[in-house]
């Protein structure tokens, strides 16, 4: 039935779909090709849609800056946030879904309220707080605050609700303690949630800008997105160089997304539609 008749509406909307899709792909295409264009090609009156000469000069210029360090910092920050979020969120989400305990409703509504509040509003006090802990301008300052946001707890709670209680009952009767039950029974059942949350957190942290901007200062402490923004500030119209930096930041994360697309989209759909 859906192998539809080719109505005019369907034809027009499919054509529009393709046209709009090209608009969405174009900026990414322009980053990649721009990164390899010579300065002459970029300044030319007639832009080259496809580079006539593929040049490495932009990357040579990029790596005069500590771009590998920025890249490594982004990997460290994203990876650490990912691990911490998965760990804390799975433990909290599990008990919120499966245990009845005093204060549960209150805690849950507190998390909901915090989700609705704009997280950037707290950044000024957060910077002062982190400074007082002597963590400002260290990678920790970009990692730890991002773990406090309760999105992951919701996602984990949604998934954990689907675990049959009889499984945990059985494990308890077999003499497992609470922690063993969690590790041996619950964690394996939450595998799809871990996948989705891990990718989601990694991508979000990799692309985060504001938190990192206010927390990281020294040139060697920047992440790749901050580094690219700095380059833009310093060489505002050297678009080739800026595109080389943007490509270094964007290509790996897009590759990760493409590889794990299905796990990722299912995860955010489940976490949001039901929650």
């Amino acid at each position, binding site marked *: 039935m859906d192998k539809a008749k080719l109505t005019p509406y369907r034809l027009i909307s499919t054509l529009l779909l393709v046209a709009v899709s090209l608009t969405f792909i174009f*900026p990414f295409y322009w980053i990649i090709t721009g990164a390899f264009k010579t300065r002459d090609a970029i300044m030319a009156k007639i*832009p080259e849609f496809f580079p006539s000469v593929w040049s490495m000069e932009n990357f040579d210029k990029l790596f005069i800056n500590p771009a590998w360090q920025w890249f490594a910092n982004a990997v460290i920050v994203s990876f650490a946030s990912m691990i*911490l979020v998965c760990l804390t969120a799975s*433990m909290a989400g*599990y008990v919120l879904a499966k245990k009845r305990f005093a204060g549960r409703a209150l805690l849950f509504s507190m998390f909901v309220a915090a989700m609705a509040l*704009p997280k950037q509003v*707290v950044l000024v006090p957060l910077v002062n707080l982190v400074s007082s802990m002597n963590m400002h301008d260290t990678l920790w300052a970009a990692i*730890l605050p991002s773990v*406090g946001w309760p999105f992951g707890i919701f996602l984990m709670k949604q998934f954990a609700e689907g675990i049959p209680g009889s499984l945990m009952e059985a494990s308890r009767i077999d003499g497992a303690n609470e922690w063993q039950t969690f590790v041996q029974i619950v964690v394996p059942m939450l595998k799809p949630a871990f996948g989705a949350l891990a990718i989601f957190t990694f991508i979000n942290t990799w692309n985060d800008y504001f938190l990192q901007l206010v927390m990281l200062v020294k040139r060697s402490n920047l992440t790749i997105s901050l580094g690219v923004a700095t380059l*833009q500030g310093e060489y505002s119209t050297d678009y080739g160089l800026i595109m080389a930096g943007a490509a270094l930041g964007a290509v790996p994360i897009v590759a990760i997304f493409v590889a794990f697309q299905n796990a990722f989209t299912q995860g955010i759909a489940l976490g949001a539609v039901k929650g």
Partner: protein
Amino acid sequence: MSTNIFAREHKIQAQQTRVSYYFLLPALLFFVVFVALPMGMGVYTSFFKYTMSEFKFIGIDNYLNLFKDEIFVRSVKNTLIIVVGSVPIVTIFSLWLATIIYNMNSFSRSFFRAVYYLPVVTGSVAVVVVWKWIFDRYYGILNFVLQGLGIINKNVAWLGQVDTAIWCILTILLTTSVGQPIVLYVASLGNIDRSLTEAAEVDGATSFQVFWRIKWPTIMPTTLYVVVITTINSFQCFALIQLLTNGGPAFSTSTVMFYLYHNAFKLFEYGYANAMGVVLAILIGVFSALQFKVMGNKIDY
């Protein structure tokens, strides 16, 4: 005998509560230290003249000054323009795309979903710097293409004036905002019970009627969610402004978030900036509450 059972149950309950808090402890620790505490501090210090050298209670003066501050008022106006402009477009556009995508075969569906998610994954910095180049007055491809098509006859400084810059901002915001709504709509359209739509079609309903009478009410919760998150994200528009126009020319494209950043991290007016944060949070809260009220009662839970 029965008191024994109660006592035992009580003991189990207490034990469950203790265990639960052990599991919650790490998440709670992060939440309290890095979310709840800064929130409280933000509200508290908004009542102080708080700079690098000063910390003096001044009541609601920061708030009073906000409304006398022309740049702040301008920033609120710009923020509202961005929110009111982007939310309906993002919602309608992503729903429209999702209705085309969701009943394609699984390969095309994944492909298009990924295409519309691409700007989100590429990251705000990379997306903004490339658009800045596209809009560039001298080296941008937009001016070249539009001149080639004869739409404009000399290069336009798209980012150099407010009325065109705000459109550039909205365009980029749109491309980075529809990814998640499309994923959500595709999922919830796919969950609609086939037998319902088929029965309606057998009864002679047009596809337009099927959409309005069956699909639209069913996806209402998703629409509410999409509207709320798009509103929150648009209110917090920052990277886009800072990297694209830096609020300029002369703060004409500043948003609340941009001006907050400027006050806190360039002028070091912490108390004043925190008052802006509180106002922004209230604005977002009011908008979300209104949306829940208007759309929420149309939802059958």
